[in-house]
């Protein structure tokens, strides 16, 4: 069986990673490989003192004390070069423990300093050292009301690295996660569901886990991301009638190397205790996956262009259910002309804990463009005034060209999406085929 190594970088990355391991242990007894990196001790120390301390080997940690001060340059250039050898060694050790290493999962945020800077520095290291192993990155993008002023700088600088060195990126924003939590809380507290919500089934809950309470405000949100990662790897870990490995995700969802940003949506967010689920309820799950309420990124895929879409189903769902729902949903979605039937599907028989089935949808869709454009605008507002620039430029190895190159890289990406969008409402034409002389 293939293994993945989870790399948690920075405060955000480590907090999410923690939730992930919590959930993973509920599904398996086995211990997987992880490398935890943070440039200040607070978070990692907490993990080591908390109930998950037995999960992690201290040999898998890299910590420093001072933190990156929300500065990508410090994370990337300073800590990057300082810890490069140590990091490489940790990765090699982790890889050695794996029977067959298939993928690195990197979890980080884009807006800060460590997760963003050091996290993206790692990508290059991994690419050089383990060229055949996939690099999946879960990136938390800053919301508009982010409290870190320099988050646009950090994000754009990080984007360039993601463009060039990641195989697949799952962009997620905090606002979407927050909206999902609010919606669930509303449903549960309004009494509409009464006592009929199954325990452990809230995608935000950590009941039954080692961590007993929601100590931090982000816990519930992090649980959602953790669930995403768990479902992503389910088909590789468990049996099913149509398996999907992680390398198949990249193969099917990335038609051109640059366009590797996938919007994710997860259902259900909770399960009712009703055991006999009629097919209608099952169909509702599919409809939900395509509703904005279940997306982990603020975006509008239905009004944009799909390049490809993957549906990963868990539980007692058969191929006919899958096909029926694809037929039903297809007319309301727009697919690019050369990939009109661009669906990748998988069926895994083992559902997640607390649910009878679940669905994870990953879409390569031009709807990510507005997120990137917004980011670019916020960047330009700061950059035009050269605000806070000196904090970056005083770091050795940083020059203005780093900024301009990063912006060009992003602009080029946006342009590719633009070109695809331009083909949106054009009629599908069959191109002339090769003619054979008989």
């Amino acid at each position, binding site marked *: *069986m*293939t293994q993945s190594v989870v790399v948690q970088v920075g405060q955000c990355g480590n907090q999410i990673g923690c939730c992930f391991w919590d959930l993973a242990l509920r599904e398996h007894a086995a211990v997987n490989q992880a490398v935890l990196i943070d440039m200040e001790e607070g978070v990692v120390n907490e993990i080591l003192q908390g109930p998950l301390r037995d999960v992690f080997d201290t040999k898998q940690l890299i910590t420093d004390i001072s933190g990156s001060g929300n500065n990508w340059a410090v994370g990337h250039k300073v800590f990057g070069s300082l810890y490069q050898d140590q990091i490489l060694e940790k990765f090699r050790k982790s890889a050695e423990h794996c*029977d*067959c290493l*298939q993928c690195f999962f990197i979890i980080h945020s884009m807006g800060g300093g460590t997760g963003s800077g050091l996290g993206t520095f790692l990508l290059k290291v991994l690419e050089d050292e383990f060229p055949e192993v996939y690099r999946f990155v879960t990136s938390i993008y800053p919301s508009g009301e982010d409290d870190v002023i320099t988050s646009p700088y950090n994000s754009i600088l990080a984007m360039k690295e993601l463009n060039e060195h990641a195989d697949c990126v799952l962009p997620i924003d905090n606002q979407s996660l927050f909206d999902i939590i609010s919606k669930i809380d509303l449903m549960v507290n309004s009494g509409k569901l009464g006592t009929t919500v199954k325990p452990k089934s809230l995608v935000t809950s950590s009941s039954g886990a080692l961590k007993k309470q929601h100590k931090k405000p982000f816990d519930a949100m992090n649980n959602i991301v953790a669930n995403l990662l768990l479902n992503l790897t389910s088909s590789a870990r468990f*049996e099913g*009638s*149509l*398996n999907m*490995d992680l*390398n*198949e995700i*990249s*193969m*099917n*969802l*990335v*038609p*051109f*190397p640059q366009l590797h940003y996938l919007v994710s949506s997860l259902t259900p967010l909770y399960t009712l205790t009703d055991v006999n689920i009629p*097919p209608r309820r099952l169909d509702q799950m599919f409809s939900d996956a395509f509703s904005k309420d279940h997306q982990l990124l603020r975006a509008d895929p239905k009004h944009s262009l799909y*390049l*490809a879409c993957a549906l990963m189903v868990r539980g007692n769902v*058969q*191929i*006919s*259910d899958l*096909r029926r729902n*694809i*037929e039903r949903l*297809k007319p309301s979605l727009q697919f690019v*002309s*050369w*990939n*009109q*039937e*661009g*669906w*990748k*599907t998988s*069926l895994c028989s083992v559902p997640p804990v607390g649910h009878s089935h679940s669905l994870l949808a990953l879409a390569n869709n031009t709807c990510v463009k507005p997120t990137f454009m917004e980011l670019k605008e916020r960047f330009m507002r700061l950059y035009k005034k050269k605000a806070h620039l000196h904090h970056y430029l005083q770091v050795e190895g940083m020059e203005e060209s780093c900024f301009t190159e990063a912006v060009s890289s992003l602009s080029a990406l946006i342009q590719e999406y633009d070109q695809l969008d331009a083909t949106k409402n054009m009629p599908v034409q*069959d*191109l002339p*085929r*090769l*003619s*054979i002389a*008989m």
Partner: protein
Amino acid sequence: MSIVTVQLGQCGNQIGFEVFDALLSDSHSSQGLCSMRENEAYQASCKERFFSEEENGVPIARAVLVDMEPKVINQMLSKAAQSGQWKYGQHACFCQKQGSGNNWAYGYSVHGPRHEESIMNIIRKEVEKCDSFSGFFIIMSMAGGTGSGLGAFVTQNLEDQYSNSLKMNQIIWPYGTGEVIVQNYNSILTLSHLYRSSDALLLHENDAIHKICAKLMNIKQISFSDINQVLAHQLGSVFQPTYSAESSFHYRRNPLGDLMEHLVPHPEFKMLSVRNIPHMSENSLAYTTFTWAGLLKHLRQMLISNAKMEEEGFKDPALYTSWLKPVNAFNVWKTQRAFSKYEKSAVLVSNSQFLVKPLDMIVGKAWNMFASKAYIHQYTKFGIEEEDFLDSFTSLEQVVASYCNL
């Protein structure tokens, strides 16, 4: 004579299991509706073809299981062992840890050469176990990475090393609306390669079998297990023992050879399809061309009226191409014994224009995608270049044209 089955990838292995299971259950079934002597001869013939005997009497399937990741093979091994009726050979498997990622290029150019020796060794051991070896039956899908890419590679190797033996590839045509996004690429690469190295391509469409399950068998929530069982039933009815041409007293010794001889008169035309009654109804006939509609209706009428096989209807020269005489083109294989609980059943294996339309569609879709160069970088990464794609397109356009010109 014995047939060695090679099961490749998730699809190939899942189906292979159902086929062996169906063959053995039918062979042991108490509803043969024929004499005991007849039954015993039938069982012996079936056993010799597909199973070898072990000391404690449990038949071992003459099969080689190949997959690039272990989950499916492990499942099939235990399912067979659990049945108590038969099992797979302990050393008949080849497994790796990481799949082919739905990438034909990876299956063909990376896994193929890397594991060539090991896989061919296992196959050779299986062939050596046969007293008299008739040929290979290779089960694979064309949408994925292992069945399709590694399948094409293995078939090529079999052509090189066993050029005197026959090879029939059982290929699963994926659903039109995606199981895999790059399935059209994988399909055209597979078909063009197999056309060169295989002797016959027996094609089964998931869409068609799905319809059988839905409309004729009334299954509500159709699973891949249901689909595979229908497929196994169809294959079983083709491969179970039938009387040879010479007499009604001996079972046909070389089914593969005889099938090929009759069904593949010209190397340009290798695509075969299977139609089985009872399963079929007039609904499905909507896809056939005009000449077959009458034919199959006839088959159906015969069954209903319990009439003897009237072969006259099949001898109409209008059904066949001008360079074949009906007497050469049409053959009937019979057996007294009932198959798999159906009192009377008939199966038609045909080499016809039936598959041209689906083939044409796949080529068209793959071509559209190729024109935009989408996903090509995933293939060039492992050594399949744009020229290889163009070669495949050319070969298949040729096949389509040849069939259309009939």
